[in-house]
C-alpha cells in the first residue's frame, strides 16, 4: 500500500528466509569476516578475468542462499539482481546459471535495496512465493571500469573509497521464519552538482538524506523508531556530510544509531581511505553482518538506506556532474 509520496507499506510482511554473502581477500581480513558464508583468498577466484570472478561471486551467493533456504533452483520464481559492470553482465550471467526468470536492475550501489524493495512488493501482493535478490561488486573489475586500469597505479586522494569484492543475496518468501520487510521508500535522483568521482560519499550524502526524510515523513515516524538507520556506502566524508545536512534540515539524529555500511566492513588499519563502496558493500554488510546482529537480538527494527552514484565512465569524462540516489527498506525482527 502506498503511504505518503513514495513509501510502500508491506502489510503481509514478506520474510527474508535466507541470505548468503561471499567476500574476497580484503574482506576476509576485515572487521566482519565472521559474517561471510564464503571467503576467497584470491581476487581471481581461479578465473581468467576479474569480470568472470565477479560472476562467480554472484553465482556462489545465489547457490548458497538457495541451499540455506532448503529450496531448489526451480522454486525460485524471479531473480532481481544488479551490479556495476557495463550492461550488468555478472548479474545476467549468474542468472543464466540459476535459470529462473530474471529482471536486471541498475541502481549502482543502491541496487541491494532496490532489489529488496521490489522483491518485497511483488511477494507482498502474491506475485511470487520466492524471490531471489542480490547485488555484487568486484574491486578490480569495478575500479578498472570507473577509475583507471589497476596496473596503472594512479594515486587516489583521501576522499576516495575502496570497492568491496563481494556479493550478497537474499531470498524473500511469502511466509517463513526470519526478518520481515515492512516498508520501503523509493528515492529520487538528487544531483547537487558534484563531479569528483573520488568523492562519491560527498555526492551521495544529499540523496541519502532526501530518502531518509521522505521515509520518516511518509510514515509519520521519528528516527528513534529505528534501532539503527544505516546508509550503504557514504564512507567517512559522506557520513559526516549527511549528519550536517540533516541537522541543517532540522532532523536530529542520534549519531550512535546512525551508521554506514562502508565504515563497518573493514578494520581501521586497512588502507581504504574514506571507507568502502560498491554494490557489494551494503549487500554483504546487511545480508550478513546486520541480519546476524538482528537475529542475536541486538536490533529489532532497522532502516537500510542504500546509496548509489548514477554516473558512467563516459559521463564523468564528459564532465557531467554525478546524479545520486538512495532507496530505503525497513527490516524488522523479533518485534511485536
Amino acid at each position, binding site marked *: 500500500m502506498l503511504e505518503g509520496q513514495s513509501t510502500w507499506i508491506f502489510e503481509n510482511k514478506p520474510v527474508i528466509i535466507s541470505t548468503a554473502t561471499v567476500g574476497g581477500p580484503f574482506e576476509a581480513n576485515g572487521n566482519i569476516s565472521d559474517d561471510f558464508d564464503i571467503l576467497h583468498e584470491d581476487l581471481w577466484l581461479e578465473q581468467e578475468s*576479474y569480470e568472470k570472478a565477479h560472476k562467480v561471486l554472484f553465482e556462489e551467493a545465489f547457490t548458497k542462499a538457495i541451499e540455506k533456504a532448503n529450496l531448489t533452483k526451480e522454486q525460485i520464481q524471479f531473480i532481481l539482481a544488479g551490479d556495476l559492470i557495463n550492461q550488468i553482465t555478472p548479474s545476467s550471467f549468474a542468472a543464466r546459471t540459476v535459470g529462473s526468470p530474471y529482471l536486471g536492475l541498475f541502481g549502482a550501489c543502491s541496487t541491494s535495496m532496490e532489489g529488496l524493495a521490489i522483491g518485497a512488493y511483488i511477494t507482498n501482493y502474491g506475485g511470487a512465493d520466492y524471490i531471489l535478490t542480490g547485488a555484487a561488486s568486484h574491486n578490480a573489475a569495478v575500479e*578498472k571500469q570507473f577509475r*583507471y*586500469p589497476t*596496473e*596503472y597505479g*594512479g*594515486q587516489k586522494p583521501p576522499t576516495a573509497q575502496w570497492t568491496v569484492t563481494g556479493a550478497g543475496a537474499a531470498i524473500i518468501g511469502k511466509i517463513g521464519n526470519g526478518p520481515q520487510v515492512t516498508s520501503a521508500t523509493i528515492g529520487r535522483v538528487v544531483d547537487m552538482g558534484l563531479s*569528483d568521482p573520488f568523492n562519491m560519499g560527498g555526492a551521495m550524502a544529499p540523496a541519502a538524506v532526501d530518502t531518509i526524510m521522505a521515509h520518516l515523513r511518509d510514515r509519520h515516524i521519528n528516527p528513534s523508531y529505528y534501532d539503527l538507520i544505516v546508509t550503504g556506502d557514504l564512507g567517512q566524508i559522506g557520513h559526516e556530510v549527511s549528519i550536517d545536512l540533516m541537522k541543517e534540515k532540522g532532523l536530529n539524529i542520534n549519531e550512535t544509531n546512525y551508521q554506514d555500511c562502508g565504515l563497518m566492513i573493514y578494520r581501521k588499519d586497512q588502507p581504504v581511505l574514506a571507507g568502502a563502496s560498491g554494490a557489494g558493500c551494503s549487500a554483504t554488510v546487511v545480508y550478513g553482518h546486520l541480519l546476524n546482529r538482528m537475529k542475536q537480538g541486538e536490533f529489532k527494527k532497522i532502516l537500510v538506506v542504500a546509496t548509489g552514484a548514477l554516473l558512467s565512465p563516459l559521463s564523468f569524462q564528459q564532465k557531467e556532474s554525478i546524479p545520486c540516489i538512495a532507496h530505503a527498506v525497513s527490516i524488522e525482527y523479533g518485534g511485536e
Partner: protein
Amino acid sequence: MFQTFFWAFVVGGLICVVGQIMFDVFKLTPGHTLSSLVVAGAILDGFGLYEPLIDFAGAGATIPITSFGNSLVHGALQEAEKHGIIGVLTGMFEVTSSGISAAIIFGFIGALLFKPKG
C-alpha cells in the same frame, strides 16, 4: 658531492611538488598532469633553460618526466641544425629512442613475469 645530491633532491622534489599540486589542487587527471609536464619541459628547453637546470641539478632534472619533453626538443633542434627540416623528426626519435626502447623492453619483461591483465 653532498651538494650535488642535495640539489638533485631539491630540484627533482620541486618538480614532483608541481605535479602533485596539478593533481590535487587543479584536479587534473594523471594523463593530463603527465603530458603537461612533458610540454613544460619542452617549452623550457625551447628557451634554452632546461640544459642549465640539468647542469645544476643533474638527476634531479633528468629523472622527472619534464626531461622527456626537453629531450624531444633538444634532439629536434640539434638535428635540425645538421640536416634541416627532416632533422626535426629524426632528431626527436634519436635522443628519446633509448627511453622509449627501455619502456617497451621492460614492459615486455614485466608482462612475461606477471599477469598483465588489470
